[in-house]
């Protein structure tokens, strides 16, 4: 039996790779070949679809827009979550448990419930169609997540570290920046990874809050699919390109992924 244990993960990975392969396969085909015949690999290999994306500003700006708001969101979420997670891991204060549960509830709020009010709210404060609006809206589910992950990492660090630093005459801000943050760098990496991930994959809110100037790549795709007929090749190429940033990020944090998922109360 031991000899065949590799079978399950192998088949599973093949199953995971098939749709991705099909997407890549299609992105290198011409529209004629896609619609005309069923081929397992491109017969007339073409980079046309990718060239179309890299030369058209509506397409490549979509990528910049997405990366911009994801970046802003990750920075905001991790920055404000750091002191909060420290407070939850070190101190007991009035309403701390309720506050923690309230944060958790925001992770459970369906985006569909918030789509319309967000649209009205951000229009009212003149932030509609800006990167910052999407970045702030995504804080709704990313800040709670970052707080949990960081709290998990911080609780694993003994309190003696703090106490020794105070005895040595460090002031609190000095201790926090110079000693504490470097100690939990791995935790910050994992938290940033999850914020990046959830902001990158979310579309409903991002689409609702933007029209032209900050439109995410994923929304550009749906618009193109519906207006200029069904250009499957172009759609496939754009889709393939959205996989790349995620793949990069996974590669950098691969040693922490499993740990990050398991931490504390995610």
């Amino acid at each position, binding site marked *: 039996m031991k000899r065949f244990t590799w079978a*399950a993960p192998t088949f599973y990975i093949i199953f995971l790779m098939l749709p991705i392969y099909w997407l890549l396969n299609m992105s290198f085909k011409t529209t004629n070949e896609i619609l005309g015949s069923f081929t397992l690999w491109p017969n007339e290999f073409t980079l046309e679809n990718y060239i179309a994306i890299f030369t058209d500003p509506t397409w490549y700006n979509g990528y910049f827009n997405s990366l911009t708001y994801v970046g802003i969101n990750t920075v905001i979420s991790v920055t404000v979550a750091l002191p909060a997670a420290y407070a939850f891991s070190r101190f007991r204060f009035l309403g701390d448990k309720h506050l923690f549960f309230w944060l958790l509830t925001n992770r459970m709020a369906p985006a569909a419930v918030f789509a319309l009010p967000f649209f009205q709210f951000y229009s009212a404060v003149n932030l509609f169609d800006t990167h910052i609006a999407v970045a*702030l809206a995504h804080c709704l589910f990313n800040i709670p997540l970052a707080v949990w992950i960081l709290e998990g990492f911080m609780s694993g660090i003994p309190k003696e570290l703090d106490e020794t630093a105070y005895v040595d005459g460090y002031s609190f801000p000095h201790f926090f920046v110079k000693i504490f943050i470097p100690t939990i760098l791995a935790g910050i990496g994992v938290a940033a990874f999850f914020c990046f991930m959830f902001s990158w994959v979310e579309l409903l809110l991002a689409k609702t809050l933007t029209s032209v100037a900050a439109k995410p790549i*994923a929304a550009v795709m749906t618009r193109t699919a519906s207006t200029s007929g069904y250009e499957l090749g172009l759609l496939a190429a754009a889709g393939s390109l959205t996989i790349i940033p995620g793949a990069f990020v996974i590669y950098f944090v691969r040693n922490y992924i499993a740990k990050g998922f398991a931490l504390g109360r*995610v």
Partner: protein
Amino acid sequence: MSRKTTNQKAWLFVLPVVVLVAFNALIPLMTVVNYSVQETFGNNVFFFEGVKWFEEVLHSERFHASLLRQLTFTSIILIIEIPLGVAIALTMPRKGPWVSVCLVLMALPLLIPWNVVGAMWNIFALPDIGLLGKTLNSMGFDYDYTQQPLSAWFTVILMDVWHWTSLVVLLAYAGVSSIPEAYYQAAKIDGASSWAIIRYIELPKMKRVLTIAILLRFMDSFMIYTEPFVLTGGGPGNTTTFLSIDLVKIALGQFDLGPAAAMSLIYFMIILLLCWLFYTLMMKDEEK
């Protein structure tokens, strides 16, 4: 836990988080509550309606149908993904270069934007030019997810299994890899079978991460919107219209703000209630 000191000033550290999340959560939620009790005939004139919309939604057959579809979908997802994820995590290599390869490849679907997942499966499952659709049809199955409800359900479920089982795998794997080597050695000395090792060592040790996995999969599958919307658009007919899709149809498609807001709140309450149950059960377990 007992080493925490009481310090009310800690509120200052939490304040930025509270302000930002409240800004995002409370103000929009109040808007929803506001709409849920009012009627409008346009021109921003509103009338107070009390609980009329709530009664209407709770008695509407459309809501019952979407809720039933949602519950069916979520149960099927949990029944397939949790055991499958655990089985794969248990058979994964524990050390060596293959661990990284497996983890990176498995995490890949989790980082693809949700509508790209939908579009990808849309292309993959097309009956004439998609790999899955073509293969099934040439094997003799009558498969067309744009026309037949059964095919559509099959595709939506397969897509979700593809998309999210890895989350369960990663969680379960993290649980398994935290088991000390000594446990396995002890089991070996006692001559335990591999089933006994799974049943009495690995599953109990994974209990905590599995609770998290079930909770996360429950919440996310209950809120699913983008992937089925891109894949099937809720069709054929209304057969794959889950709660979120129905809600967006009512709110942004028909602009029936009152019923949509009431439905939002009921929807949110259902998730909150079920998660609160999970959360308290989890905490109770930890206190033991």
